[in-house]
């Protein structure tokens, strides 16, 4: 296990089809860096599990090669890959106690008894279950089972751990706690994790990098903040976080900025990110929290009249739906602070935003 900067896992030109008719994965190229926490995020059916299964060796790639530690592994059977895996439903062996579950990977590696005991103890302490070694999985709560599953995937010191929606079956509070714990373990051990989820908050809080999947293609692979603030395309903008979408036609454009005539009326000054050219269609993407209420005249490049349609009180902020540029579902988040003006329903106010905050992207569909 030499420390080097080569990627731990490389996907090279991976394609996958189950039935010979539909490509579930279309040309995947991706490097996973050593020690990284990489999350695959995407809607259901986008091919995330398929990707993990190919890494784990349970599904063959139809085309292309996967490298682990620089070695091609397409022909290596799953049990020789040495990859830890946490399944969505934990897949703890019900006929074994927690300790026996943890001992299983060590026994099949013919590790000696003392070493086994030491490692099991360490792994159980890591997930704070030192007392639970003699229980059966059925005698544990969902969160405890989850922790055992994590401990079992780590007990044999794999370089790489795959987790397929490991928190999918837990309720919200437990989920958040487990997110924190898994993240903590990752940082402590320095193990590489490929994590699958379709919960975007989970992806944002846990990951070093996120690969957004859709339709068998990585739409964007970037750290969470970049993904949120600088989405490459309309799908990512829409999928990650809340987003106002305005469709229109490009009137003027250069490398930095562009002017788009929105379908409902109004010329918006936006940042050029992923646009075709003058006369083509484009999607404008604008985060609700970047909208400024009642800006001073002339302080922003984009200022429009907005009619307040709906106010939803959410404690720390007020979610306000307004009609602007002919779009009825434009959302503005107004912080609930003393200095903030209070809006009334069915009144008209001025709203505005910076050119950089409004990204001109591909037209999507």
């Amino acid at each position, binding site marked *: 296990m030499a420390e080097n900067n080569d990627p731990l896992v490389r996907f090279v030109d991976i394609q996958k089809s189950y039935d010979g008719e539909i490509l579930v994965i279309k040309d995947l190229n991706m490097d996973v860096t050593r020690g990284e926490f990489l999350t695959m995020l995407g809607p259901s059916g986008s091919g995330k599990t398929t990707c993990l299964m190919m890494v784990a060796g349970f599904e063959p790639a139809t085309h292309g090669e996967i490298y682990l530690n620089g070695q091609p592994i397409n022909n290596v*059977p799953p*049990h020789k890959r040495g990859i*830890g*895996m946490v399944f969505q439903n934990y*897949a*703890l062996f019900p006929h074994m106690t927690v300790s026996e579950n943890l001992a*299983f*990977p060590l026994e099949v*590696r013919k590790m000696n008894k003392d070493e086994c005991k030491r490692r099991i103890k360490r792994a159980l302490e890591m997930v704070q279950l030192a007392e639970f070694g003699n229980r059966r999985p059925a005698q544990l709560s969902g969160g405890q089972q989850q922790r055992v599953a994590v401990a079992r995937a780590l007990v044999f010191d794999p370089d790489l751990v795959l987790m397929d929606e490991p928190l999918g079956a837990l309720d919200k509070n437990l989920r958040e706690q487990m997110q924190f714990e898994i993240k903590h373990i990752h940082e402590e051990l320095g193990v590489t994790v490929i994590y699958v989820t379709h919960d975007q908050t989970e992806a944002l809080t846990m990951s070093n990098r996120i690969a957004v999947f859709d339709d068998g293609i990585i739409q964007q692979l970037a750290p969470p903040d970049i993904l949120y603030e600088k989405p490459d395309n309309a799908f990512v903008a829409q999928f990650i976080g809340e987003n106002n979408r305005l469709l229109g036609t490009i009137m003027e454009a250069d490398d930095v900025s562009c002017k788009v005539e929105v379908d409902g009326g109004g010329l918006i000054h936006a940042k050029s990110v992923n646009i075709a050219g003058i006369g083509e269609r484009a999607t404008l993407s604008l985060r609700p929290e970047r909208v400024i209420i009642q800006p001073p005249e002339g302080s922003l490049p984009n200022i429009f009249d907005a009619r307040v349609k709906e106010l939803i009180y959410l404690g720390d902020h007020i979610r306000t739906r307004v009609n602007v540029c002919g779009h009825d579902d434009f959302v503005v988040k107004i912080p609930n602070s003393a200095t903030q003006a209070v809006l009334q329903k069915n009144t008209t106010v001025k709203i505005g935003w910076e050119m950089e905050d409004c990204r001109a992207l591909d037209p999507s569909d």
Partner: protein
Amino acid sequence: MTNPDTTQEILTTADGVPLKVSLKRALRRKKRNSLLLVAPLFLFILLTFLLPITDMLLRSVDNKIVPDLLPRTAPLLAGWDETGQELPGEDIYHAMVEDINEGAATKTILRLGRRLNFERAGMSSVFRKTARKVKGLQQPDSYQAEMLKIDQHWGDINIWRLIKRESGAFTKSHFLSAIDRQTNDDGTIGPKPEYKQIYIKLFGRTLALSLLITVLTILLGYPISYLLATLPTKTSNLLIILVLLPFWTSLLVRTSAWIALLQKEGVINDLLVAVGLIANDHRLAMIHNQIGTVVAMTHILLPFMVLPLFSVMKTIPPSYMRAARSLGATRFTAFVRIYVPNSIPGIGAGAILVFIMAIGYYITPELVGGTSGTFISNMIAYHIQGSLNWGLGAALGTLLLLLVLALYILYDKIVGIDNLKLG
């Protein structure tokens, strides 16, 4: 920890009724409803299952026929000392004559003869003969002498001992016969003569063959079930129909088919001869012996192994095997250490089902078992229908029932009945 004041308080519902009382009331209503729901089935089981079984248990010890048909002799015999060498007194001979006379008039005496004939061959004819001739007897000087004239067996003290032994309302002789024992003339209990010992051997054979059949169904059924459980549902449903197909034909037809296949002039022997593996005059005997029973019963009982196995295996998530493999186990290790232990409830359920069905099987061993491949149930059937020794049949049946119960308890001790999963 908790405040003692609050724990003392009796919890009540809103209208002041103690919580426990109203809870109990609610539960009672629920219980009454559920009782009503099971009542029809309970009645059905009572009539068709519990009553017959009770009747069987009673019949195996019931001996009322003797005291009923010898109303005068039986009480007098109680006073006779059978341990001595003296024949019963004149009064007993007199009583016997009257009993036989009465029995001959109502034609019930033959039943008594048949009953005692089970204990000692020849008794039936003694009674028949005596009943025919005793009618003309008019106040003789000595009843004993007259009876001895009719049939000298009446002078055999062992016959009187036998009648005295069997003159109670209950008898243990059926159970003794069922385990190849008898009451000797001197009143001690000992083994039957060698040539009459059959039941223990038959019980043993029934157990051994049932066990063999169970093991064979496991060996044959496990791979099929595994295949069925791992195939996509569409295919497995089709194959399940194939497994169930035998149920669509009558048991008799299937058994006869085996006869056609296995007999000396049957398909398999013909094939072997045609191929030249065996000579024409050395055809294999595969039917009317144990091979026939085992082959045919394994085939017939196989679905009862496959179905519970399949339904249990279906519930084993594929992720178990994947998890084991990702943890470093080879396919084989994963199968042995993870899959098989998780399928044990299915093996247990299938085994217990097949074994219990096999142990009481009747038609197939009857048709293809010959003499060496028959089961205890064939003997029970023989005693019920052929020899009309219902008492012995019932005793054998009771022993079989006890045996099954004992094995069931043993199974519970070893595997645990909670582990059983039938679906």
